[in-house]
């Protein structure tokens, strides 16, 4: 795992989202909340606009907008399909 500075987050991506980002793990500029992060991501990767995914902050998924602490581990999770 990379060291992230106070102005960055540790960004994880899975499933079809990882394919769009072309990576499973990277550092990313800090955004204040999940809505802001989603907007930043869609700006860089427009394909994400039409793809369903939720955002987990330090392994917690909240379907409302939630704040992101600097240095957090943030994961982009498309619909689960285990089993």
């Amino acid at each position: 795992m990379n060291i992230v500075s106070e102005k960055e987050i540790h960004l994880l991506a899975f499933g079809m989202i990882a394919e769009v980002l072309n990576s499973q793990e990277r550092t990313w500029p800090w955004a204040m909340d999940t809505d802001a992060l989603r907007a930043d991501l869609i700006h860089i990767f427009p394909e994400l606009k039409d793809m369903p995914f939720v955002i987990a902050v330090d392994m917690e998924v909240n379907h409302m907008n939630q704040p992101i602490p600097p240095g957090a581990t943030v994961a982009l999770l498309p619909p689960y399909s285990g089993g």
Partner: protein
Amino acid sequence: MSEKKPKSIFIQGPISGVFVGESIAKHQSKTDIGAHALFLGQVRADVRDGQRVSHIDYSAYEDMALQKVHDIREAAFGQYPLTCMHIYHSLGTVGAGEISLFVFVSSPHRDAAFTALRQIVDQIKSDVPIWGKEVFVDGDATWKVNR
């Protein structure tokens, strides 16, 4: 509070029939058990647009998945009189006809075992961050969608 990392549920590749059989046999010493209920999820060779599924490649957000499974376990133990519970899920490649999910619940009586098993399997499908990519015989692939 237990802060230790939850035990892994992941097995690389398919879950073998031998592994399932040995898991059952290990319970012979637990003589307060009267009922075992087992669920085995098997990879289907679905056909879509004329293409047959050859295998599924499973991936997971492992740390979060283990935390979610831990929560599912604790909730079921709190709700039902269960003696023990074992949950295994594959990672990596699992071929059509092979087993990718094994849930094993034991209880003194059958009602609790059946009911808890159903709840646990449903929650694994809905709440645990695991993804399956269906790979077709010709090499094309599509992300699996759970019903």
